[in-house]
């Protein structure tokens, strides 16, 4: 059964391209492993670094187990608070991934909705939406995220900060990514809209909503998927950059960016592992997503298909 499915996938062009691209296989495997680890962090990670009661400050700055002074109970050593690096990274990647996925989904839903409707409906509505993307583009992502973050902080009550910070981050990153989706989906919609199957649906009398989201949307998913993948890597990096600038998730529940930010302070003092491992982890994560997106961009581009 499984082998049949695999064979079937292999038979498609995408599947073939995938199984013949070492990069695609390796990067998707890595990405999958990281995702699984972070989903099952409770099982994979030996400690729960987000539970302050289990962390002992006296364990702080333990080097990786193979270094002098290392300790086999902390494979990759501990950070400045005595948290196990390995566990903290797994849990941290969970935050990075949640923020990354959620913000991209948010951006995608918003952008695709506006883009498809703008492309399909046209007229004044389209002009307004496209001008909005222009305005949005004049405020680059980091700047936008800083703004949203600042505003949110001053509006949300203190006790809510911790609970809200994830949503704020998701909103802040998502809101700066949506124009990409809007532009691509609008452009694709403009192409699809003029295809005859859309005319056929209109002649049948299907409602515009149905045409846009049942007929057109599935046909423009490919480019959207590609920018979503690349956007995911970007969102994860943006999250880490915000954390680096000190406006990310609280330090008691560090994401990868927060870990690097703290670790960076110990770079010159010899505790290299605190920044090194999360940085490598982040790079590997972002790289695997980017490689995947890159492969996807080429594989899904009908214009580049080898005849």
């Amino acid at each position: 059964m499984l082998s049949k499915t695999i064979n079937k996938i292999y038979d498609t062009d995408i599947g073939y391209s995938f199984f013949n691209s070492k990069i695609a296989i390796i990067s998707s495997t890595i990405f999958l492993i990281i995702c699984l680890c972070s989903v099952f962090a409770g099982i994979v990670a030996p400690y729960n670094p987000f539970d302050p009661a289990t962390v002992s400050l006296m364990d702080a700055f333990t080097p990786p187990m193979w270094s002098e002074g290392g300790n086999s109970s902390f494979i990759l050593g501990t950070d400045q608070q005595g948290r196990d690096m390995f566990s903290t990274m797994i849990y941290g990647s969970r935050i990075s991934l949640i923020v990354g996925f959620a913000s991209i989904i948010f951006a995608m839903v918003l952008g695709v909705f506006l883009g498809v409707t703008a492309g399909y409906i046209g007229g004044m509505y389209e002009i307004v939406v496209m001008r909005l993307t222009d305005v949005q583009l004049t405020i680059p992502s980091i700047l936008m995220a800083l703004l949203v973050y600042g505003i949110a902080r001053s509006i949300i009550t203190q006790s809510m900060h911790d609970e809200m910070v994830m949503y704020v981050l998701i909103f802040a990153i998502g809101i700066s990514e949506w124009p990409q989706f809007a532009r691509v989906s609008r452009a694709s919609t403009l192409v699809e809209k003029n295809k005859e199957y859309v005319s056929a649906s209109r002649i049948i009398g299907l409602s515009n909503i149905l045409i846009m989201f049942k007929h057109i949307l599935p046909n423009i998913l490919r480019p959207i998927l590609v920018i979503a993948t690349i956007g995911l890597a970007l969102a994860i990096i943006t999250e880490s950059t915000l954390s680096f600038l000190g406006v990310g998730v609280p330090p008691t529940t560090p994401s990868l960016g927060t870990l690097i930010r703290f670790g960076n302070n110990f770079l010159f003092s010899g505790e290299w592992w605190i920044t090194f491992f999360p940085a490598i982890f982040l790079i590997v994560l972002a790289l695997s997503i980017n490689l995947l997106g890159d492969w996807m961009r080429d594989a899904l581009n009908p214009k580049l298909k080898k005849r």
Partner: protein
Amino acid sequence: MSFLEVKNLDISYPTRKETIVASKNVEFTLERGEILGIVGESGSGKSTIANAIINLIDPPGEITNGSIKIDNNELRDNEELIQKIRGKKIGFVFQDPQTSLNPLFKIKDQLIETIQTHLNLGYQDALKKSIQLLKEVGIDNAEKRIEDYPHQFSGGMRQRVVIALAISCEPDLIIADEPTTALDVSIQYQILELLKDLTKKRNLGVIIITHDMGVIAETTNKVIVMRDGLIVEQGDTKELLTNPKSNEARSLVISVPPTNKKIDRFKLISPDGKEITSDSKNLTINIIKTWGIRENKNQKLLKLTDVTKIFDDRSLAINISFGSKNESTDKVVKAVDNVSFELFEGETLGLVGESGSGKSTIAKIITGLVRPTNGEIFYNNISLYNSNRKYQIDKSRGQIQMIFQDPYSSLNPRFKVRDIISEPIKFFKKNISHNELTQNVYDLIDIVGMTRQSLDRYPHEFSGGQRQRISIARALATRPRLLICDEPTSALDVSIQAQILNLLKDIQDELHLTILFISHDLPVIRQMCNRIVVLKNGRVCETKETEELFNNPEHPYTQELIRLMPKIESII
């Protein structure tokens, strides 16, 4: 010894699943002053041979065997020689003049570049020669126009520029790959005349690759018929067209709609020699059960009065976004200009005209895809547009359906065939039972002559002709009274075209359909229609009974169209 000798040529495309043989054991010769036609249906390998001569086969294709000699010089595997010969000894003309020229360079630059690559000429001489060339291919005011960019030329003019480029370095051989397919009849005629003329004047050898038997008949001396990479027959053009020996050639010739008479059905011969018969009788019982019997009252079904459509693309001043090129143009185009005609139940009315004549826009206005600027459209005596010029789709309730030109874009690639066909049924019969729906879908797929297994497949798994059948099935699903066919066969091979046309005739008889048949192809129109409306630049030139029109065209434009259309009979 011949000027061009192709011997034993094998070309194959290795893909991961199989190796596609694009040509096998191809042999032919060509002399100077001769025009050779290579004809065949899509996928027959005719273009591949042309590309093989100058070694421009798209990867991963490769020549696996054989030889190509020009003036007794072997070209195969001789990249150095080919490089010298390309453009110099062999000129090439592609199908689509819109994309053949680099949009960012002036005509001048492209001509001079080519000339200076091959001929030892200074800039001024090259420029002089370029102007000379443009004049030769019939471009007026060449001194000035040479400074223009490609997009400033019309399609036909552009193809002339392409030909000028092809002959710029005094080649001995011109290979023209579907040189007129993208052009209108009148322009096609001019381009073909130009080619013939150049052949004579310059004593060129010419290879024309085309799918159009009319073009073959009117232009070539010799012809090669190809199928599946094999030459099935070659010989003198007249000989071959009048008396094809192979089944394949016969099937090809017989499917060509005659220009001089009207026949009831096309006789169809499959390439292996058997006659194809179609019969859709008694397949419509279930459809009629679902939608009720409809009587043909021979009444006026559709009436257009003074319909005008003006495309006013003047965009709002702010309608430009950063970084994207502004696609809007400041043009006011009268696409449809005061068009009136009537359509009676059960008849087939032809709308004929060249590109830009407004025939497709009229179809779109009738189906509500485009709002008319002016005029009234009555369906069954009910106006289709209300006072706000809003389309009243509920007035026709699916009784007007349409078949489109491009079988590749008219089916949603993400839908299975079953869903494509059943969607309109479900839309109009919200509470249809599952069984009834299935039965309807089966009937429809049966009517259009496809297997029921096709229902669970996706459109990309089918050929163009099959897709057009699916398209017809979808159009029939709501049991329409009026079927609009917008160039339904212009993207299809001629034998497939014959099948689809036969099918349309069959279902018209079965279901008492009224058809509005839109085409630029006069022979097809002649075979399909009872009456014909001739359109030019959005205006009606004349409206007449078919035979009357072909035998006694009144309007000069009609006369010209009929005169210029390539006629396979011309050679007979």
